[in-house]
């Protein structure tokens, strides 16, 4: 032991005060912002659970006396769109049929583009990339008519394939940008090592670069999944009546009712339509924010 044993009191860790004025201010701000964004959702949910007379009372925020989950079932399977009374379930499955292949294809093509642009430096690569980025900033409404004309010329306008192709085309700039920025940060030496090991274009992509980009694959999938699911305009214009996605069916349901407006059913259908993106946001928020940041900051 030391000869000079001075019993010095160790400095206390400063007590953490939980509620400073600044903190109260922050929480007040956060609460009001959340309320602003959550109230519409709340109104949607409560309205969808009300009976028709309750809706007519026009008490927007009131909790339903007796929640009617049967409204949801009706919206799903028996509400009438024009003359067909099958609910919007058909639209749901159409959306699934469009979203899954379109997401997979556009993410894959974006990764492929990003990989090719970052590693196989071709003479025109940078120019092509510039043109593609330009495409991302031209309002897509401008391109709709030429596309319709081309598709009609090609004979597959208003088919399942035309909606797939449209989603791939319009997803391409963002997907390419995301993956290019991801791959640019990968050292060239890794690519060179794989070249020496005999890897060709596809093998290096499929066995090395694609597995390496798992975080970006997740982000890109989330972006495309929600983006394509929420699309209305392309679905309406290109999909054709048999393939109308859920968003289009929802609009038809809301717009085509005769007589009294059945707001509770409309709201139930809206909730069913938005449940997929809501679930995606809810379960993958962390990745989603990362993807937004990757696209916004680096690009």
């Amino acid at each position, binding site marked *: 032991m030391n000869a000079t044993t001075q019993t010095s009191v160790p400095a206390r860790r400063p007590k953490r005060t939980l509620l400073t004025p600044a903190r109260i201010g922050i929480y007040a701000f956060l609460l009001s912002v959340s309320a602003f964004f959550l109230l519409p959702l709340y109104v949607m949910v409560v309205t969808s659970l009300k009976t028709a007379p309750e809706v007519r009372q026009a008490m927007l925020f009131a909790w339903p006396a007796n929640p009617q989950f049967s409204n949801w079932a009706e919206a799903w399977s028996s509400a009438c769109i024009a003359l067909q009374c099958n609910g919007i379930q058909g639209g749901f499955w159409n959306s699934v049929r469009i979203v899954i292949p379109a997401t997979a294809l556009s993410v894959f093509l974006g990764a492929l583009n990003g990989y090719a642009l970052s590693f196989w430096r071709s003479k025109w690569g940078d120019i092509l990339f510039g043109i593609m980025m330009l495409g991302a900033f031209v309002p897509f409404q401008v391109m709709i008519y030429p596309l319709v004309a081309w598709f009609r010329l090609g004979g597959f306008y208003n088919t399942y394939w035309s909606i797939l192709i449209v989603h791939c085309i319009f997803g391409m700039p963002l997907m390419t940008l995301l993956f290019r920025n991801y791959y640019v940060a990968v050292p060239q030496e890794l690519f*060179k090592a794989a070249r*020496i090991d*005999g*890897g060709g274009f596809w093998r290096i992509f499929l066995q090395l670069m694609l597995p*390496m980009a798992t975080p970006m694959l997740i982000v890109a999938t989330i972006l495309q999944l929600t983006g394509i699911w929420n699309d209305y305009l392309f679905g309406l214009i290109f999909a054709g009546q048999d393939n109308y996605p859920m968003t289009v069916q929802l609009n038809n349901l809301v717009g085509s009712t005769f007589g009294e407006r059945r707001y509770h059913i409309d709201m139930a259908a809206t909730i069913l339509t938005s449940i997929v993106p809501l679930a995606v946001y809810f379960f993958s928020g962390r990745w989603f924010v990362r993807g937004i940041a990757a696209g916004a900051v680096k690009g």
Partner: protein
Amino acid sequence: MPTPQPTQRISTMANVQIKDLDIVLGGVSILKSMNLDIQDGEFLVLLGPSGCGKSTLLHSIAGFNDVTDGSILIGEKDVTWADPKDRDIGMVFQSYALYPTMNVERNMSFGLRVAGVPKAEIEKRVNRAADMLHLKELLNRRPSQLSGGQRQRVAIGRALVRDAKVFLFDEPLSNLDAKLRAELRRELKQLHKDIRTTMIYVTHDQVEAMTLASRIAVMLGGKIQQIDTPATIYSRPANMFVAGFLGSPSMNFVEGSLHSEGGSIRFQSVALNVDLSGYPFQQAPANGQRCVLGVRPESIKLCGASASTQGKATVSLIEPMGPSQIVWLDAQGTSLSVQLEAQATPALDSTVGLQIDPAELSLFDGTTQNRL
């Protein structure tokens, strides 16, 4: 694609020939009519400061740069336009460049799997390389679970299993800390002693160059300044750049002039006056020629101030290094460093005499800076 013939390729060696090579990258000429002959089984080190073109030369041999003019031959085969995979090379990078999603075993076997080598043969070769590099216990680890030294050993292993004719190293030890660097340097030397494959090694570290090389090529500005054994490069540098680049502390330079005096030639300057009988002149110098005398710190001996006929200096600073010490002298305004054994420490500010053996010094032309 050539079919792999693993059993024949083991321990095949190859020389590398660079003929009139021009490399232009992005409009900038990096290498200009470079000629280089690398022997079978040689360990050639390309040494130089950053930007001297040494990495460009290595990457051109590997096939990553488009050749503007000239040709590259590996084992008498012209590979100027061959794909990197068809050049029978293995390469180790500074950043290790391991495949992050594969474990050690799959990292090492990737090239063999691509080439369609049978499974049993892959296993045999991976195990052999793992044995050589002490990687046996790490075969199932991911690169992220390895230390820097282990990663670089895996990268070396990945080059080894390919049974390449030529191994290329691009500053492989630069990312490691000093202790690991020395350790891996020794392992590399041992490896070369064991497998005797041609190796080309790029570095800016003179210690790596001196310890590993059979021959060193010192480069500056896209040109080879001197190519020779480490001993010759060190003791008989071809010009002042080479002389100054190798050695720590670096060679002392003293400006002066040469004078003939009754058959013998003397170097004269304010600080030093040295009789040069015994210096191997490449050609007879002109009387009164301006020149620079270069002398390594360990080639200067100290004696009593009155005993020296060559020059005197005062001791200005002493740096003890453990087994030796660096003594900094002030010789009439010229700073000189002298390496001495640790025991004989001169007193600070004392005046000492200088003794230099003319056979151990170098003389350079005052204007061309080339060796006289």
